[in-house]
């Protein structure tokens, strides 16, 4: 088989897989374009749902809140996880493995069990119905996994690179920032994206923590369409499509960094 023919076979395969996988997403798109699903109107396709949610409802405020909380969570989470992941990856002591396990244990308690104690704790310091408080919870909720993801990635960076730097007199810290972080772009991005989605899609914490409509994030905004009797599915789906856009933009922008990342280049030089 010529390499070129294999390429097109693979293209056909991935095309088919993608098409099947995206059927439910296509359903969301179709439903978002069908005006007034709940009202039983049989009108043709259109953008009526989008006009409705963008003009009659504080969708843009919610979008801003979601973006703010999420980006702050990502920044803090990655800043915390990268150094801790480095320690987990390079450390070989009992304390390190204990810590690694501890991260796991606290992460194992389901959110639904943790949310009421957290609310009570945060209420005492005035951090409920507050986006800062919500962001802190998200950092805590995503931190364990983020650290582990960073550790997993840093494992793939040979220690020999740092050793070379240490021989040149660099400190451990310099080795971490100059060598490890610089070669960790794919790992950092994966971690950032994971944190992004944890925070972006959460509704279990936010529904308990947020009260005022002007502080809602998008997933809670979606909940406002679930009324006593029936649901305004057209608006829900339109909001869902709006909600999908920022992550898609993030992925599309960062995608090329995923592939050119890695450490093949620096290894070739050693």
């Amino acid at each position, binding site marked *: 088989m010529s390499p070129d023919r294999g390429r097109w076979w693979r293209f056909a395969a991935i095309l088919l897989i993608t098409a099947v996988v995206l059927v439910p997403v296509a359903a969301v798109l179709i439903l978002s374009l069908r005006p*007034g699903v*709940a*009202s*039983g*109107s049989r009108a043709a396709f259109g953008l009526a749902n989008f006009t409705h949610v963008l003009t009659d409802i504080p969708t843009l405020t919610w979008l801003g809140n979601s973006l703010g909380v999420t980006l702050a969570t990502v920044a803090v989470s990655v800043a915390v996880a990268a150094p801790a992941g480095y320690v987990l990856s390079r*450390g*070989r*002591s*009992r*304390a*390190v493995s*204990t*810590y690694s396990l*501890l991260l796991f244990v606290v992460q194992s308690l389901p959110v*639904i069990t943790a*949310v*009421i104690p957290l*609310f*009570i*704790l945060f*209420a*005492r310091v005035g951090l*409920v119905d507050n986006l800062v408080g919500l962001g802190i919870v998200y950092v805590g909720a995503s931190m364990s996994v983020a650290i582990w993801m960073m550790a997993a990635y840093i494992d793939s960076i040979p220690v020999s690179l740092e050793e070379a730097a240490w021989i040149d007199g660099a400190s451990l810290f310099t080795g971490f920032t100059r060598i490890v972080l610089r070669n960790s772009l794919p790992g950092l991005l994966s971690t950032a994206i994971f944190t992004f989605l944890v925070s972006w899609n959460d*509704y*279990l914490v936010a*529904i*308990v923590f947020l*009260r*005022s*409509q002007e502080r809602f994030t998008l997933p*809670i905004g979606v*909940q*406002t*369409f*679930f*009324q*006593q*009797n*029936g*649901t*305004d*599915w057209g608006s829900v789906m339109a909001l869902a499509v709006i909600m999908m856009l920022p992550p898609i933009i993030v992925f599309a922008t960062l995608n090329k960094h995923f592939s050119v990342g890695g450490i093949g280049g620096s290894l070739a030089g050693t």
Partner: protein
Amino acid sequence: MTTNYSRRAFLGLGAAVGGGMLLSACGGGSASGGGDGGTLKFWDMPWGQANYTAAAKKLTEAYQPAGSLPGATYQGLQWANFSQTFSSAIASKTGPAVSTGGGFQAFQFADQGAIAYADNVINQFRQDGTFDDFLPGQLDAMKTAKGYAAVPWQLDFRIWWYRKSLLDAAGVKVPTTWDELLTACRTLAGRKLFGFGTGAGAGNNLGSQGLHLMMLNNGGGLFNADGKVEVVTEANLEAMRFVQDLVKAKAVDPASISYTTDNLITQWRNKRVAMGIHTAGLDTDTGETDGDLQVMGPLTGPSGAKAGLVFQNNIMMYADTPSQEGSEAFLSYYIKNMKTLWQQNVVAGLPVLKSIVALPEFQAQKQKAKIIAEWAPVAKTFAANSPTLFGGLAAVDSSQPITQFAQTVLAGQDPKPALESLQKALEAIVK
């Protein structure tokens, strides 16, 4: 690196910090619920379509407190995980002073000492005549041994509906008894139509509530006259055997045990369902108010009894409030002025006050008016045959055992063991 901090010291530190925070959180403090800065917090659920919240907010903000009493602020909540929202707020003393909520929430929180009883408000209603404006029996349903747990403000019924065009086409006349119902279901099944439209999927309680209505219709129920769980009775068994006959007659969609409310409404809208038990809002839910969907009269059961199922949605006051007198004044204001919500037609529920029932805006809604006229007089509470409502009910409606029971019976399985395991499970929940 190996001995800088030992594992034990490390875990000890964790426990100490965690424990310390717990102690400080439990040690009381200056936090106060119900509202601050001289205003009352009123929390409200979304009781209608999108325009409901705006109307209720306007009604709240129009409140002019007398003298030095506090004013009120409005907070709309969501149904998703609402019991978590209330519990966490009350536990952290950041909860409301007055609220609507789940049908049995007031009784549940009253058991836990978080409710301020409404006896003063009711006494005032007795004096100014509002008391007699309530539909018969509805206010009494709120009475507990310690006082009125809340004040009802709207009614939520489970009743029989039918689609006229489908019945006409099948030559079926609207059933008035169970026998006629079964015959009608058989005829409709021949046309691949379901005569017992229901749903017991994720978040949908219509399935279990429909079965409950059938029990009540036969003189049965979930509770006995002492308020104890008693479901394995002849009346219930007979009712559930009848449902089993309906399942055998193909009156129940086999997929319906997994139907969400939206799935069920879709099946009504797509004319797959010809008859079924639903809330009062079926016609608005499907978007057809042209009269093709109609409310049946209450059916006569084998024993000759008629019954409906009604939930008294209510407004409750909390013990944690900036001013109890203020809470009472606001609640009284809200009840006396809430008719505007029905005048604007933004509430899905039915009125509990005769003066609102009499409004031309309400009487224009023929199906809803029919429910008040024909179903309200025979409707029983969820607690029947117990004379009063109580806190344990919150744990029964939508609980795991009752959902499981509904799914079992609607799948056509033998109702006797299903009733027996329901009895056991509910006894464990309702202490």
